[in-house]
């Protein structure tokens, strides 16, 4: 009995000691911060880190941002350093852009930044609830979250973004499709109800589970593009809160008189405007905020109020500063890479330069990783509604598309253009020109002209005029190869490069007949599987106007619309969603709306050999997303 008491006493003692210790460590240093910020705290220019962080910061550890299999040796990092980069277009560094993206909720694979959209994880929103019918979404903002200027983030900012920006017809002439029921252009606009300081509710007239996907990743945007805007800052440029006279001096500076909405638009910074000079001083929620944007450099520094910490309680990011120098030419980037002046480069690397990178790795002090590309880098798109009845009849025939799919020698394309790196895409079939020829003969394209090309139903040689934008260096050689390969099955194709703005304009007007483009971009789930303007402009018009304009699509296209509608109605990652995605793939394999040339493609990434927490595999863009956990080991 006595012994029992003794044990009890010891246990109590141990417990109280533990508790005491815990409470001591709690009060002393629950969170740690970069020496750069600690200095500012000491000077009294910044509140202590506990006050800057939200009540429950997002805790980053192994497998949180990147899957464990891609980054098995995640480590707590060290503070400090400047990550050097290069950019080409003024005010636009695509790698900083992706690295700084903070969606309201995050897309997950098995790590937040894995971006294989299997589900949704907390980010700025830490809790949410979806009604059974997928119509009502209740979101809860991380309590105590602050803008980069220290001002608290509350539902007032959401209400402002909704009522004063989205519902203001000067600022938002057309209500965005993303926020309409079911992601349909005629869907009812979203309704917002603010519940308390941190909770708000978005509701739709129709099921729209995909709304979570919109908030997470679609079109690569983040919180700043809709639904959350810093009211305390922006209200000084909004007519509802600031009289016009007060804005007059600023308007005059811009050469305007009373167009306050232009001033507001200029001051309101979207996710893709963060590297521009106007973005300096704009309150943000991102890991780094722009501090100095000159004509030749972009400099971003750590956001003292960033809401993520690591497992040891260190506030992220580890790296203090991002700095990017402008180069006059894209090729100059490679020069900067091989001389070791770049610490991280993703988007502007090129597979064709891999040998150069490898040869200079040691000398330049970097590693060139070959990781998965986030899209299928090339494929053929035929415009099913191009204004030519013969063309429509031929390309609308599934036998024709199957024949083309079989007539493309993917291995040749992969070997000669992608250095043998890559695989057959999911919709691809083995190369079989005999079978392709048979199919084309069957469908009535059996007559040939003097050069051996097939004659169309109108008695003229049938031609696929491929016109591609000049923005991808691989497109010209691929087009030439495709033209040659199609010749073997008697299809005449021509390849022509057109200037990118002309390409964009013709896609926009739906008048591009055939083109080469990348496909299956992970972050771009459009209302249809691809940009409808590239392949079915008139059908899509019919669909969006409910049959008032455009052309009535055939059944298989309508089926595609209906599968897509159901996908957008369901919740990403749910049983239903995954089933529908499989259904969509089966539909795609059966009807071949586009013909992809290569899947499982690779993209080189340049990382300094001094950087830690760099995944060894996974997707290029996911690595870029996880930049806040990079650190300099030396």
């Amino acid at each position, binding site marked *: 009995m006595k012994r029992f008491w003794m044990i009890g006493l010891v246990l109590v003692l141990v417990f109280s000691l533990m508790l005491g210790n815990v409470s001591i460590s709690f009060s002393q240093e629950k969170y740690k911060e970069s020496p750069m910020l600690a200095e500012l705290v000491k000077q009294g220019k910044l509140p202590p880190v506990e006050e800057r962080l939200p009540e429950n910061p997002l805790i980053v550890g192994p497998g949180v941002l990147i899957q464990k299999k891609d980054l098995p040796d995640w480590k707590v990092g060290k503070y400090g350093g400047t990550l050097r980069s290069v950019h080409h*277009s*003024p*005010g*636009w560094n*695509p790698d900083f*852009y992706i690295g700084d993206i903070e969606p309201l909720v995050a897309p997950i694979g098995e790590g937040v930044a894995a971006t294989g959209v299997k589900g949704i994880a907390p980010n700025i929103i830490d809790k949410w609830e979806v009604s059974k019918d997928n119509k009502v979404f209740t979101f809860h903002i991380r309590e105590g979250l602050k803008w980069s200027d220290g001002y608290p983030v509350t539902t007032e900012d959401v209400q402002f973004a909704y009522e004063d920006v989205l519902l203001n017809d000067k600022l*938002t*002439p*057309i*209500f*965005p*499709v*993303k926020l309409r029921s079911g992601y349909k252009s005629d869907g009812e606009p979203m309704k917002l109800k603010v519940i308390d300081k941190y909770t708000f509710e978005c509701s739709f007239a129709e099921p729209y589970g995909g709304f979570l996907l919109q908030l997470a990743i679609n*079109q*690569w*945007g983040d919180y700043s593009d809709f639904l959350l805007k810093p009211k305390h800052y922006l209200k000084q440029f909004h007519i509802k809160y600031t009289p016009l006279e007060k804005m007059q001096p600023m308007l005059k500076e*811009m*050469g305007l008189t009373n167009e306050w909405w*232009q001033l507001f*638009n*200029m001051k309101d910074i979207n996710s*893709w405007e963060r590297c*521009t*000079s*106007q973005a300096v001083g704009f309150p943000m929620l991102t890991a780094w905020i722009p501090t100095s944007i*000159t*004509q*030749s*450099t972009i*400099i971003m520094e750590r956001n003292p109020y960033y809401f993520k910490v690591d497992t040891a309680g260190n506030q992220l990011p580890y790296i203090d500063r991002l700095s990017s*120098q402008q*180069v*006059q*030419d894209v090729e*100059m980037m490679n*020069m*900067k890479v*091989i*001389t070791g*002046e770049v610490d991280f480069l993703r*988007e502007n690397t090129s597979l064709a330069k891999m040998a150069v990178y490898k040869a200079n790795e040691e*000398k330049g002090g970097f590693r060139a990783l070959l990781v998965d590309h*986030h*899209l299928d880098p090339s494929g053929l798109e035929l415009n099913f509604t191009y204004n030519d009845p013969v063309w429509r009849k031929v390309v609308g025939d599934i036998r024709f598309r199957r024949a083309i799919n079989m007539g493309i020698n993917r291995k040749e394309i992969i070997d000669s253009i992608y250095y043998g790196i890559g695989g057959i895409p999911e919709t691809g079939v083995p190369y079989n020109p005999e079978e392709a020829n048979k199919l084309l003969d069957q469908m009535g394209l059996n007559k040939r002209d003097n050069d051996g090309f097939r004659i169309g139903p109108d008695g003229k040689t049938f031609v696929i005029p491929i016109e591609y*934008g000049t*923005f*991808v260096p691989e497109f010209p050689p691929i087009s030439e190869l495709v033209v040659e390969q199609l010749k073997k099955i008697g299809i005449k194709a021509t390849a022509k490069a057109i*200037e*990118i*703005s*002309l*390409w*964009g*304009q013709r896609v*926009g007007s739906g008048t591009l007949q055939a083109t080469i483009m990348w496909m299956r*971009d992970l*972050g*771009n789930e*459009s209302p249809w599987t691809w*940009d409808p303007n590239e392949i079915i402009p008139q059908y899509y018009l019919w669909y969006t106007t409910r049959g008032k304009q455009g052309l009535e699509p055939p059944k298989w296209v309508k089926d595609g619309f209906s599968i897509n509608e159901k996908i957008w109605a369901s919740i990403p990652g749910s049983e239903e969603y995954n089933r529908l995605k499989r259904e969509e793939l089966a539909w795609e394999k059966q009807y071949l709306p586009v013909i992809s040339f290569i899947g499982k493609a690779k993209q080189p990434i340049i990382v300094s050999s001094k950087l830690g927490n760099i995944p060894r595999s996974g997707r290029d863009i996911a690595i870029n997303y996880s930049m806040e956990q990079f650190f300099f080991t030396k």
Partner: protein
Amino acid sequence: MLNYIIRRLLMFIPLLLILSIVSFVIIQLPPGDMLTTYIMRLKMSGVQISEEEISRLTSLYGLDKPLYIQYLKWIGNLLRGNLGYSFLWGRTVNEILAARLPLTIFISILTTIFVWAIALPIGIYSALHQYSVFDYIFTSIGFVGLSVPGFLLALILMWFFYNQFGINITGLFSSQFVNASWSLAKVLDMLKHIWLPLIIIGMSGTAGLIRTMRANLLDEIRKQYVITARAKGLTEKIVIFKYPVRIAINPLISTIGWMLAGIFSGEALVSIVLNIQTVGPVLLQATLGQDMYLAGSITMILSTLTIIGTLISDILLAWLDPRIRYGEVGK
């Protein structure tokens, strides 16, 4: 003379007006506008801009207004010294030019001095010692300099320096000075880097100038007045420098017209290859991106400078060469 200058200055007004319309229209000619280029740039990175966003941007930049209103707005601001706003850079054209102009002018003037200081003596020497060994050597170098484009030379040198010494010769400043404000250290750092672009940009200019100077002088020294001067017993130095050289230099003076514009824009291709922040690459980028106010304003300034340069060279010529009259033949 004064009358002549005033008349020329008055002719500027309609000329500049026509030029401004032409440069504005040319920029608008290709399909699309600055916004389509901007949207495509984002699309290349995977960012899809929605219809709503496009309509918002169109009205933000005033691209929904008819062309003549855009033109009038631009020309009105231009007259008040406001060169407009660059969509691509997100800042005013004045700001962009102010940052790049001093460096551009500095490099251009230095290059010009370099070119003249080397080319003139060599040209004179070659002419006086025609078909001598040195004449052949200079001629060969001159032809190489003329035929090898500057950007190619830049690329070769860049590769050579990297391969041999492992240094990157691009840019005008070491990385620690790029953003630093001007100081003695920065100037010294620049002087360390500037000689290479100077030689590359100057190369073809030097070669061309040597050829022109040589040919002109050769023409002159065979003329009778030279023989007369010699016969009168003047020293060789005076014979050559007082008469034929002065006349041989005339064609060079008339090139000042284009030189002024050249000084302003800098050598675009070499600047791109060597990554030098001059005005040339900005003009190229602005034209490609249909950044109308930036491209339009630079084109306008270039044309104005060309006109002024032509006037200056005309005046200089008239002053140097009394044979030139002011279009008042018969009076």
